[in-house]
Structure formats: C-alpha cells, structure tokens
C-alpha cells in the first residue's frame, strides 16, 4: 500500500497544471465562536512561491489521477503511463487541516481525474468538502473543480460547501477539443456555467430581502482556465471566448496557462517551449477587458488576430490609434484616461481626485511615480505638450521596444532553462 508522502507527491504533481490560485472573493466568515479554524473574505494570501514564480495559496491536489478521459495536453490522460494514486477523503481532510493550522495554506483546491462517471467523481470530491465543513467546522477557503456532466444536484451540493467552483474550458473551440480532448464538450461546459451563474445570483438576490427564506449557501464565484499554445487558436479566438464567459456567465476569472512540457508526452501533441510571453500578454489583454473598458476587437481583430509579443496590448492599441492622443490629464474623462499607456486604474483615480483641486503639472505625475517615458508622448499637462516628441513619428514604436534581452542573473545555482523574461506571474498588472 502506497504511503501518504508518495500519494502527495503524485497527486500534487498531477494538479500543478491548473493555474488557478485565487483565494479571494469569498464571503466573510471566520472561526471565532466556532470549534475549528479558518477564515475567508479578505484579500487572498499567497503563503509561498515556487521557483516557477507561481504562488502557493491553496493546497492544490487531485483526489485521484486515474482518468477515463484522453486529453492529450494532460499528464493524467488515460494513455499516459504515469503512476496512479488515489487519496481517501479522510487523507485529504487531514492534510488540509494539518497544513492550514501551520499557516502553510489558505485552504484546499480539489480536483480529480474522472473515474467511473462524472457523478461518482463529484461525490468523492464533495465528500471531502462536506467533512471539512460539517465534521471539522473548517471555515477556510475551498475551491472545487466540477464536471459539466455531473448532475445539477451534485453541483448544487459542491457549491454549498465551496467558496469557488470551476470548470475548465481548456481550449476555446470545439474543433480543438475534438482533436485534443475528445471527451470534452464546450456547449455542455457553457450550459453548466450558466446554471452555476444562476445559483450564484439567486443567492445574492435573495440575500437582499431580509424576510425571505434563506437560500442554501452557494459559492460566491466561478472561474475557468484556457490552455495557450496547445492548439492553433489565435489570441482573438481565446479572448473572444474569455469575453463571452465574462459577459454570459459572469466568471470571476479566466486563467491562461501556457502549455508547458510534461512528462509522458502524447504523439498527438508534440512538446515545445511554453509560450510564456504570450500567456503574459493574454493576461494583460484580459485586464484591459475587465478593468479598462476595452473591447476584444480593439485588442485583437479578425484582421490582426494575435497580440504583439514585444509590446503590451494597451501601448500597442495606442500606437494604432494615435489620433486619440495626446490626452489632457486635466480634462479628459475617466474612460479616456484609462486608455493612456502607462497609466493604471489606481493612478487614474488619483489623478481624478487631485485635479479637482489643482492643475496637474509634470512634477505632480512624477510624484505619483508614473512611467514618464511611456506616458509623455500621449499626454498633455499644464506645462507639457508632446507635439515635439513626435506622436506622429514612425519611430515611436521603436522607442518602446524592449532593449536586447539580458540573461537572468542566477543566485546560487547553475544556469536555468531558457527564461529570459522578467515578467511577473501576477500577470496582467499594467
């Protein structure tokens, strides 16, 4: 019989390709006055970081890595020869509690390979969450992966115990799924997301009426993940799919995960270097959709369907739309300020607040520590007009191209794989 350490090795390794790590956005609850431990509702906390730059927030494991499906990008597909393991519900419960009490984690992210049937698998996953909540009074964060084909009753039960539930789209078109993940179906996934959206909203709507009967608790949000670089989908297709999920099903987050080499490669999907810069640009574009009032067509159009890998998508848009600039930071409305390259949401709000009392000058913007070099060609202030900087000049794009790549300086270890990018993993912050 396999020991717990070996199971944890296999079932954590099997879960690492899920990029979702959020532990924020849950309803406020804590352990005061209760019998257990746990709290949620504030900002999510990253308790550690691994050398891939990803945060460790939730204990992310699979119930089992045995799987009926044959998704060729996945190490756990049935055609893989990877060693299989299976936790008992009690093992996952105990690990979660032990890790949580030592403040290693924010909670549990539980997913599973699909065994026997969708419903059977969901029941295993739900049993862990039920025990944590009902037997151990655990009030930490729980994220459960759900299966679109599982019964509605089981999804409702999963949502009852979880703070977040998610179904991974994985690929943005059915055509790609047919080739690489023949068991998965985009229409059914979206249908399930629609039902989940309904449940989330039902709970929130009824919460507002004090005398109405209390609806059963339900997760406060759902998210999904799309793989980048496994199929031929363009960025326009990927962002179009994300936008549809945000607007139709009110997803909290779409995660983009660069397809990276896995042990047990499939003959149907040869391995290649992970497109990390592309993943980063997609996160930036995603931010533009959610917080900057951009439309997909403005970022990636049918005529020009892929993001510029050398420049961030906002700067890229500005260079394609030079007639919009310069923008007067003392007068322009919020939506136009949001379009200025190098100016983030927080600083837009700071500018709006400050300009009620003063005419902003360059020195004011410098005190906000804005990226002046990026900003200058696109703005006017009380004491600055950029005409002479050449907004119309063809060389403007060249000014913004990154300098020749440097190698990352390593600290006390031999050279690392080819990663010349210095990008943040909390990708998307512009």
């Amino acid at each position: 019989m396999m020991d717990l350490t070996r199971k944890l090795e296999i079932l954590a390794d099997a879960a690492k390709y899920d990029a979702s790590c959020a532990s924020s956005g849950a309803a406020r609850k804590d352990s005061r006055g209760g019998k257990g431990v746990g709290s949620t509702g504030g900002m999510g906390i990253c308790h550690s970081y691994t050398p891939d730059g990803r945060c460790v927030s939730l204990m992310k494991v699979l119930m089992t890595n045995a799987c009926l499906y044959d998704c060729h990008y996945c190490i756990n597909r049935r055609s893989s020869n990877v060693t299989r393991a299976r936790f008992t519900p009690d093992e996952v419960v105990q690990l979660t509690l032990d890790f949580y009490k030592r403040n290693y984690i924010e909670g549990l992210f539980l997913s599973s390979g699909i065994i026997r049937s969708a419903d059977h698998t969901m029941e295993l996953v739900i049993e862990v969450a039920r025990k944590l909540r009902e037997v151990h009074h655990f009030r930490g964060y729980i994220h459960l992966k759900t299966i679109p084909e599982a019964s509605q009753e089981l999804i409702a039960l999963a949502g009852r115990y979880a703070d977040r539930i998610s179904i991974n789209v994985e690929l943005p078109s059915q055509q790609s799924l047919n080739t690489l993940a023949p068991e998965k179906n985009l229409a059914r996934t979206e249908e399930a997301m629609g039902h989940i959206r309904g449940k989330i909203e039902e709970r929130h709507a009824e919460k507002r009426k004090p005398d109405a009967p209390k609806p059963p608790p339900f997760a406060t949000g759902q998210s999904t993940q799309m793989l980048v670089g496994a199929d031929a989908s363009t960025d326009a297709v990927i962002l179009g799919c994300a936008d549809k999920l945000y607007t139709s099903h009110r997803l909290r987050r779409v995660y983009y995960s660069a397809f990276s080499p896995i042990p047990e490669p499939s003959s149907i999907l040869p391995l290649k270097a992970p497109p990390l810069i592309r993943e980063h640009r997609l996160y930036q574009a995603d931010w533009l959709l959610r917080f900057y009032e951009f439309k997909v067509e403005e970022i990636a159009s049918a005529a020009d369907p892929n993001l510029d890998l050398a420049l961030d998508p906002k700067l890229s848009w500005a260079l394609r739309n030079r007639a919009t600039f310069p923008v007067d930071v003392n007068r322009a409305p919020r939506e136009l300020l949001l379009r200025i390259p190098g100016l983030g949401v927080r600083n837009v709000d700071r500018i709006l607040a400050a300009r009620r009392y003063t005419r902003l000058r360059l020195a004011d913007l410098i005190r906000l520590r804005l990226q002046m070099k990026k900003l200058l060609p696109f703005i006017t202030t009380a004491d600055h007009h950029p005409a002479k900087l050449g907004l119309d000049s063809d060389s403007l794009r060249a000014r913004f191209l990154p300098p020749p790549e440097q190698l990352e300086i390593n600290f006390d270890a031999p050279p690392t794989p080819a990663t010349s990018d210095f990008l943040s993993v909390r990708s998307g912050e512009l």
Partner: protein
Amino acid sequence: MRTIVIEPEYEAWRVAARRLLAQGVAPEDLMWTDDAQETSLFVREEPAAAAEQGASAIKVPAAFMDLARSVAAHTDMRRWGMLYRVLWRLTRGAERHLLAMATDRDVRQLQDWSKAVGRDIHKMHAFVRFRLVGTDAATGREQFVAWFEPEHRIVRLAAPFFEKRFAGMDWSILTPYECAHWDGTRLHFTAGVSRSSAPDEDALDDLWRTYYRNIFNPARVKISAMQSEMPKKYWKNLPEASLIAGLIAESTGRVRGMLETEERAAKPAPNNAYLKSLHAMNQSEAVAKNHESDPA
C-alpha cells in the same frame, strides 16, 4: 523649538498631537522623537496635563486616523513630525481635501510608509509558520508557536487576523520586539524574545516540503517573479525555502528528460458505460450542429 518625546505607539502620538493642535503649536516649532532613542540632547517635555481647550471642536477626517494608525507602525523616525504636519495642514491649514492629493509630497510620503506597513502585515499573514508544541491537558486544545521577524512594529495590527483565523487553537507568535498570544478567549501581548525561544521544526514540515517540491513546474522557471514576492530575507524562517536552490538546479535536466521522452501513442477507450454515453452525446451534438449550419 519644543521636543516631543513619546512612546513609539500610535496612541501616544495621538494624545500628544491632539494637545499640541489645541494649543495651536505649529509643526515647524516641534521636534518629535521616539523615547527609545537617545534623548539627552533634548529637553524632555513632561506630558503636562495642559488644557485641551478647543480640541474637541477639531474635526479630523476618519481616513487620516486610519492612515496615521498604520504610519505609526513604521520605523522611520520622521513619521511623527510628518503626521503632525499633515494633521496641521488638514485642520489649521484649512486644506481639508489634502488626502485626495496623492500628488502632494507629504501625503505621498505618508502613503508610502503606510503601504510599506501594509505589505509587512500582509507578509506576516503569509509567512508565519506555526509549529505544534503540544496539547493543553485541561482543554484539549492544540498549542502552536511561531517565530517571525517583521520589519515594522506591526504585531498588534497583524494579530486580529490570526485570532479570527485560528480561534480554535492556542497560539503564540514570537517576534524580536513584541509577542502575541491567543488562548481561545483573550488576545494579549508580551515583550519581544529571541529566536531561540521558538521551536525550529514541526513534524509536518517534511510533508509540506513534499508538496512544495511537487507543485513546482520545472518547465517554467521564473526566479525573479518568485523573489519579488518572497524576498530572500524571509527564507530563513520558511521550511520550504531550503528546497529552492535544488529545484532550480535540477529543472533544466528534468525538462530535457521530458523533451527526450518517446511520445506515447493514444490508447483505445476502455469499456466504460459513462465514457460510451459521453461519446454518443458528442456525436449527436456534432450531427445536430452540422444541420444548423447547413444553408439548405
């Protein structure tokens, strides 16, 4: 010039500032210092029971009090004087909108200090590691102890989070300047201790390292991203950090191994009723879809 010597606590500053403001003492006539510092050069002012005439009439924006509470935890010596100057400008200076001016030098400075304190609190919430030291024989509650080295004086600001989260266990967080303790009913604070007072290990640390090692993806190494969020100064108190160098060192070889692995052929579907039903569903949906798009 008057020198105001106070305990390095928000409450001490608040009391002194309120009195000085009521007396109409301008910020340029004051020098503030923590009583922990060398004060023999200054005339030490007794906390006189001076009249507080007019103090109650002075309205201060709530946002400023929140900002001041957080700035007070910073270790920069200039914070008391800067807080008083901004308080003066907000009230006697008639700049009531001042906090909306992130472009103002003084406001910006306070916000920077507050941000540094906020980050320190956040990192404490993240990087404290509790070690199980025993079980209370009377109550049956598990007892945990952690060691942490914050940059600023944040223990009291950071402690309520731990109370809410870990109400069901007894715990102490030890730091060099102040310690926080929770026994299920009361949060209280004691003086700082040295590192040797805290346990070094926990039986679960090995299992945690197993998790950390296996959740790492060697095919996408981004060391700078890791270090910007988890600076090296925290590593010495994190059980998992001892693995970092090794994981980085072996990642190249692991990826090479993946790339050199012979690709696996797809295996036929097993005989499973659910899988068959899925395939049938997918087929019929594909057929239906073809009909929809049929222009005829």
